[in-house]
Every structure is written in C-alpha cells, then in structure tokens.
C-alpha cells in the first residue's frame, strides 16, 4: 500500500478543509454557548424542587440522552422546518440540533456540579445568615463552577468530535471536507488518515489545556 499525501496542497486545504473546519468550530462554539444557557435553565428547573418544573425538564433530558445523536440530527432536520414553517439549511438545522442536544448533557453536568458541593457548605452559608440566593451566588456556584468547568470543557471537546455526525444531513463539516476532497481526488485513505490526525491534534491539545486549567483553578481543600 503506497500512500500519497501530495494532494494536500494549500489549494485543497483552502477549498475543502478550512471551510469544514470553520463550520465545525462555529457549530461547537454556538452549541456550547446555547447549550450552557439552556442547560442552566434545565438544571435550575430540575433542582427547583417543584414537580411541575422538574418533571418536564427530566423528561426532556432523559429522552435526549437515550436517542443516538445521529437520529436526533435526522429528527430535527425533518421536524424543525415543519415546526417553524420555513426552509432551514442543513447547517442551521445542525446548530439547532446540537444546541438542543447539548443542553441536555450540560444540564446534567451542572446539576452534578451543584450537588457535589458538600452539604456542610450549604449549612455554613445558611448559618452565617445568607438567604438562598446569596448562598447560591456567594458560596455554592463559585465552587460548583470550578468543579464542573473541566467536565464542561471536556464535553465541549466531545461535542467537537460529534460535529462529524452532521454528514448524515449533508452539512459540510471538517470530516466532510476531508471526505469530499478524498473522493474528488480519488485519495480516500490518505484523507481519512489525515482527518484522524487533525482531529487528534486538535482534541488532544484541547484536553491538555483543560487538564492544566483544572490544576490551576482547582480549590485547595
């Protein structure tokens, strides 16, 4: 087997790869931001102690977490235009899907982060006279965020990997960029290998950064 990487010139990178990379990064960033926002809402609903808030949030989260992402992508692609009543491209559909999907995962991370704070800390905050809101803001959340930030970021790296699944609806992401290039120039093996290397370098570096960040912000106990 002779591999030929000569097709990887700047032209190909520019025409095929960068466009996909840009979309994957954009999708990751937007879905993370949106996922954190809606995830927080879901987590607060679940921790509210009110059944009518908790139950629907729990249902949403559990359904999202028990269906393969590919199927969720297909579902949204099919349903979103029907719901909003106007055309939506594969790229937009992917953004909506990933935001909705990640919200479910992020909400679980946040819930666990908040619950990881020892009960004694809650008591201590109350004992010095803090109200529920003050206790959350000054004692619980600052610690919870430090605890969950690494997990959130790790989830974001997984999200970046998962963007490769948008090929199911024909959106043009990083993997699709490599694939299209490979098929157009008849070099599929080389491009798949290259894709693996690029993903690895990106994800490995990101997780190394997360590890360092974790060390830095970890609370000394």
């Amino acid at each position: 087997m002779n591999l030929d990487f000569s097709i990887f010139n700047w032209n190909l990178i520019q025409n095929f790869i960068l466009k996909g990379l840009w979309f994957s990064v954009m999708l990751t960033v937007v879905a993370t931001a949106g996922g954190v926002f809606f995830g927080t809402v879901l987590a607060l609903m679940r921790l509210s102690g009110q059944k009518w808030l908790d139950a629907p949030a729990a249902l949403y989260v559990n359904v999202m977490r028990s269906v393969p992402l590919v199927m969720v992508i297909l579902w949204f692609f099919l349903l979103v235009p029907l719901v909003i009543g106007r055309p939506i491209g594969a790229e937009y559909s992917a953004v909506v899907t990933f935001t909705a999907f990640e919200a479910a995962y992020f909400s679980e991370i946040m819930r666990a982060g908040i619950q990881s704070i020892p009960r004694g800390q809650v008591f201590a905050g109350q004992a010095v006279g803090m109200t529920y809101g003050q206790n959350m803001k000054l004692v619980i959340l600052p610690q919870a965020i430090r605890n969950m930030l690494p997990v959130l970021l790790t989830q974001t790296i997984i999200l970046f990997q998962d963007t490769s699944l948008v090929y199911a609806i024909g959106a043009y992401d990083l993997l699709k960029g490599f694939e299209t290039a490979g098929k157009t120039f008849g070099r599929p093996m080389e491009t798949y290998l290259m894709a693996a290397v690029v993903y690895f370098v990106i994800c490995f570096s990101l997780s190394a950064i997360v590890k360092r960040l974790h060390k830095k912000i970890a609370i000394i106990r």
Partner: protein
Amino acid sequence: MAMDWVVFCKDTLSGDVVSGCLGHGRDITYLNWLFTAWGWTVAVSLAALTVALVVGSAIGMIRTLPDKPWLVRLGNAWVELFRNIPLLVQIFLWYFVVPALIPSMKAFPPFILVVLALGLFTSARIAEQVRAGIQALPKGQRYAGMALGFTTPQYYRYVLLPMAYRIIIPPLTSESMNIFKNSAVAFAVSIPELTQYALQVGEETARPIEVYIAVTVLYAISALVINRVFAHIERRARVPGFVSSGTGVGGH
C-alpha cells in the same frame, strides 16, 4: 400530519399490505426488516461492549499498577489515542485504511471491523472509568492487600477489582447505553442496522416520520433494557452496609 402505521405491514417488494404484518420466507415486510435491523444493532452493540469491557478493563488496570511507569504510559497513550478521534473517523479508518495497510484484514467482514472500532473507542472510556474506580478506593485497601501477603495479581483480583467494579457500575451503565447509541454510526459503513433502516425505508416508503418513530422507540427500548440489566447487576452485587457515592456524568 396524519400517521400511517400500515406502512410497516407492506411487503418490501410489491408494496402490498400483508395481513398479519409479517412475511414468510423471502417475502418480508418492513416490519420483518425492522426487526432484522434491530438485531444488527443489538449484535454490534453487545459484541462491541464485550470488546470494550475486556480491553478497557485491562488498560484501566495497567494504568494503576505501581512501579510500572512504562505500562502506565502505554495505557495513557491508548486512552488518549482512542478518545481524541471521532468515532466516525475511527470507523472509516478501520473500514478503509486499516485493511489497506494490513492486507490480511481485507478478509474481515465489516461487522468485525465495526465491532473493533466501536469496542476500542469505548475501551478508552471504560479504561478511564476502571482507573477512576480503582483509584477511588482508599489507598489503604491496596496496602491492606499487600500487608496480608497477596501478590499484585492476587490483590487486584481479590481486593481492588471487586470493589472498583461495584463503584463504577453507574458510569458503566451509561457507557453501555452509549454503545447502543453510538452503534448508529455503523450504518456509515454499510451495517444494515436501525439507522440505515431509518434512512432507506424512510426513503422507500416516503413515510420518514413513522419510520423514525419506530426506530427511535427501539433505540430507547434497547437503552432501557441495558439500564435494567445493569440495575439488576447492581442490586445483586450490592454489599450489605456499604454506601458509595456516585461519580461522573457526560459523554455520549
């Protein structure tokens, strides 16, 4: 939008509705086909789960060995390699690239390659959990095993692993459910499982919503069954008087 569930009773060749909804012999209905597809999903998932558990446990274990820095490094490298490349890319690598590099693997059926891809991908996550499980045990447990004269394999076998596995049942449960979900990408390399069914039959019958619902429900049922099985194992393995605190969420 009106639902038309009769579509599953149709013969896959003639499109005629078959009474009883199930075909015979080579005349199959979309319902027959649905079950076959589910069978593939289950087969891929269970086989990959086996690979993942075996390899993941081994890798996770060697990462906790004292005084074996090279084995630990090997384990760490394994985990980093398999978890930093998207599953889909790994599947393509196994399917197209690996057999090209190792000609003898050309003879492997796609099923085996997908199982390897999904299994090894998941093995990295399971290795991480096994390592975490062992390290979550009080350090004194290892010392206590050693102090009684157990050799390293003995104290892993009799002291550390029994508790470590009990502790990680919850994350193992969700990882096993993840395998079922992740098996969906196997359709990309022509395994005729549920997602491929959804795409093909949704197209053939022009009733994608009904088809998607059926497929989604089967995925949910699979996940639920796995969940119950693990819950049962957890109950059976529960140690009287022992309370453990749960760990970790995230990942899919």
